[in-house]
């Protein structure tokens, strides 16, 4: 072994002479890899940023997370209503940190929930850059890593989901950072510890991302040196565990770790998520899970089916094994017998790994075509096969993606919501003393308009489900002035008697949207009507 001995005196790091300016210096440091990553990321950002507030239609969950970020910013705790440990809070804490950004591009053309989506662009950009770096670190060539970023960011499925204010998008950013750090080429102990920290933050952003932790551990194991592996693995695990422990610690300090009378609890929240009524198996046609899967496939088949198919053979490729394992773990959770509730945004966590798998397989295929059996020669034929395969793949994919992405770039799916928000602003005279129940997506707008957050403008399901809210409604539905009926409010009225009564005892004063199913109705409660 040649030895580098520690020495007390070292050569100065910066050689004497004229220093390049800081900008020039840092530009030079980016290098061709960096420029490729920046270029493909820019493309992704343009496609995702254009019409970001117009498509897709705002979802109730986005409104929920935005309201919770709002509560954090205004020192009202972790949520505008009692925080009941439905999800760990780091996701909307990050959203709160980023929420200054949309202010720079302020417009009131769209509902606030949609406008705030601009905050997701840096998250997507970070994810794309990290994905490129990860691709390079696990052996993808520059073009394959760039391809992975384009697959990750331009798939119509991704364009739709990554634009939305979903916790999963934050989780993806942090888990990618963890993967990148675990694959540190210097095998640096503190990179591995940082990987543990990032993984911890990822899990506390959205707990379901924990599914890919075994793949992360495999990657770390592969990228450790024999001599320092023990330290790296323990450092990683300790960091992950200690960050993760912060969450139960918070609950314990509030006396909300275990269920008990009169208070929410972390364990209760966890049990709710685990016992949440399953949405059936994806293998059963007509089940909720199957519908979710079909909606994913409606937007994009290439990435989901192609990535999934690529993952299997990639298990045999050492350097890509961890990524393939991540894909298969995520798939196994969906396919396992007795699978529970499958949320529509679950696929977000799979997107980067599907993209890497597909790009990895493309690279292996290209290498095989060009270099298998070298004695054969036949270079023109090999290139011919390769170009043909690439053309076929592009011919299959691009028209579909073009159609999907054009929708995302042009359709204004939020017009009814925007119109409803505008109408309320113009026609409800005294917001500070008016009580209105709405879905979560509209809530932030009405708070901005001056309704009392929480008790003046009320999430519709809290009316029935949160005792702290029902207490403020002594006369039930009669205590309300308005109810805004949106598809999600109408979805399951049986479980919400007060909401049902409010709908029954109200008249439509304004209505937006064409189809009956998507219509948004602003309804005034008629208080003198009989019960």
């Amino acid at each position, binding site marked *: *072994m*040649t*030895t*580098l*001995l*520690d*020495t*007390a*005196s*070292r050569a100065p790091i910066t050689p004497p002479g004229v220093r390049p300016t800081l900008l020039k210096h840092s530009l030079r440091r980016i290098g061709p890899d960096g420029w490729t990553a920046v270029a493909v990321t820019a493309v992704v950002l343009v496609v995702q940023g254009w019409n970001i507030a117009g498509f897709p239609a705002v979802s109730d969950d986005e409104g929920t997370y935005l309201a919770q970020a709002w509560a954090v910013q205004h020192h009202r705790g972790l949520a505008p209503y009692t925080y009941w440990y439905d999800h760990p809070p780091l996701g909307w804490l990050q959203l709160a940190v980023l929420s200054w950004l949309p202010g720079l591009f302020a417009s009131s053309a769209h509902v606030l929930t949609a406008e705030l989506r601009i905050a997701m662009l840096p998250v997507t950009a970070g994810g794309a850059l990290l994905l490129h770096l990860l691709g390079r670190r696990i052996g993808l060539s520059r073009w394959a890593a760039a391809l992975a970023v384009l697959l990750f960011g331009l798939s119509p499925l991704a364009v739709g989901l990554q634009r939305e204010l979903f916790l999963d998008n934050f989780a993806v950013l942090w888990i990618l950072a963890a993967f990148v750090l675990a694959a540190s080429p*210097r*095998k*640096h*102990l*503190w990179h591995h*510890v940082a990987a543990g920290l990032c993984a911890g933050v990822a899990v506390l952003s959205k707990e379901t991302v924990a599914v890919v932790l075994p793949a992360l551990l495999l990657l770390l194991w592969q990228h450790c*040196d024999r*001599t*320092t592996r*023990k*330290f790296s693995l*323990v*450092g990683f*695990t*300790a*960091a992950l565990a*200690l960050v993760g422990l*912060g969450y139960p*610690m*918070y609950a314990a*300090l*509030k006396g909300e770790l275990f269920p008990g009378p009169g208070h929410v609890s972390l364990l209760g929240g966890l049990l709710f998520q685990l016992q949440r009524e399953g949405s059936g198996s994806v293998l059963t046609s007509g089940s909720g899970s199957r519908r979710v899967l079909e909606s994913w496939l409606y937007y994009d088949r290439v990435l989901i089916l192609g990535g999934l198919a690529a993952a299997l053979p990639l298990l045999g490729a050492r350097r890509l094994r961890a990524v393939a394992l991540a894909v298969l773990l995520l798939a196994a959770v969906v396919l396992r017998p007795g699978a529970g509730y499958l949320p529509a945004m679950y696929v977000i966590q799979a997107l980067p790994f599907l993209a890497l798998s597909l790009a990895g397989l493309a690279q292996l295929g290209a290498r095989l075509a060009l270099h298998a059996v070298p004695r054969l020669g036949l270079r023109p034929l090999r290139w011919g096969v390769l170009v043909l395969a690439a053309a076929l793949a592009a011919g299959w994919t691009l028209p579909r993606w073009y159609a999907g992405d054009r929708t995302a770039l042009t359709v204004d799916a939020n017009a009814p919501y925007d119109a409803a928000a505008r109408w309320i602003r113009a026609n409800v005279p005294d917001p500070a003393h008016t009580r209105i129940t709405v879905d979560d997506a509209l809530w932030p707008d009405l708070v901005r308009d001056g309704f009392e957050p929480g008790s003046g403008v009320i999430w519709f399901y809290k009316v029935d489900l949160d005792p702290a809210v029902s207490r403020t409604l002594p006369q039930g539905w009669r205590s309300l002035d308005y109810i805004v009926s949106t598809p999600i409010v109408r979805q399951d009225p049986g479980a919400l008697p007060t909401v049902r009564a409010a709908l029954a005892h109200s008249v439509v004063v304004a209505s937006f949207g064409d189809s009956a199913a998507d219509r948004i109705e602003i309804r005034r409660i008629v208080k003198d009507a009989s019960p």
Partner: protein
Amino acid sequence: MADGGKMLSSLFMVGVSAILFWMAALTLWWMLHAWRTPETLAATSFGAADGVCGLEFSLLVPARHEQEVLEHTVTRLLESSHTAYEILVIVGHDDPLTAEVAARMADRAPGRVRVITDTHEVKNKPKALNTALPHCRGEVVGVFDAEDQVHPELLAHVDHAFRASGAAVVQGGVQLINFHSSWYSLRNCLEYFFWFRSRLHLHASKGFIPLGGNTVFVRTEVLRAAGGWDQDCLAEDCDLGVRLSTGGAKVVVAYDSSMVTREETPGTLYSLLKQRTRWNQGFLQVYRKKEWKRLPSLRQRLLARWTLTTPFLQAFSGVVIPIDLLLALTVKLPVSVALFSFVPAVPALATFAFEAVALHDFGVQYDLRVRPVHYLKLIAGGPLYQVVLAGAALRAVWREHRGDRGWELTRHVGAHLG
């Protein structure tokens, strides 16, 4: 409690937690230096020796009332594969039993072993070493303690390290081995493991290093130019390192588990406390000598300040943590403050985890059987050991304040021999 009191407690908690966090995190960062990257780890060991005996060594072995272990130590030194060295055993004029053993060894290996008699009225190790320094004929002076087990190949490797690096000082590894003797010896062994295996290498690379008391080699001319050891300092080894590295001397540290000098932990908890008190007092003296202020860069001076005052930072945390816990349990603080007060626990718990790994590594490297009960002792003994360290730090401050600067020598029974 009134709001003002609550506010004050909150501020206190946040401030203290931030300080404790940084202390624990920095200490952890430094203690794991060697395992940062595989390259760093590889660089901590000796290079392969080339078999050339290019330098001549004078090995100093001060011995005081150590007739039981001296013969074994000198015999081991005589087994060295190196050809050009002399051994100078330094005994006190008032210590006939040790002098007798030394004379016998000199008879057995004439020309190789010489006996130097130290006639100082009040004796200590730096005085003994300074007494022998004028008699050294070699180009390099090496220091060993009378109870050290030295590997026969060590000199050859040190010789090579000097020639390959052009260094003025080479510090070899020292390792306490008897981790099974008691709960504190387990922790004491690990302390040495982290210090010589890892932390000293960081100091060498940063250009500020408190040297160890033995298995340390200095070019004779450099040592003479520096005026030898400070006879009034209780940590003459640390002081020498600080003076030499501050003066820009190149220091090389090399650790190789097969070639470390093996030692034993103090036989009782009280003697550990005394030994640690002496070191702490010595560090305090070196700190107050302000030699380190001549270091060229601010980072080096900060490292020096931090390293030399570490015992007192330990004492500080020993005092502050109980107050912190008391507040956390008695005052109803905001959840965010309470949560923040647990932040220092993150590096502290991570330290435990890494200590367990190091114990495993220690067992592997020294071919020792580490059982689950040892891991338990390691964890359970952690807080207790901190109390001992804090106690030694407070004791050192007290003794230095009273001007009590006598040597409390550690007695050795030879538990590591055999």
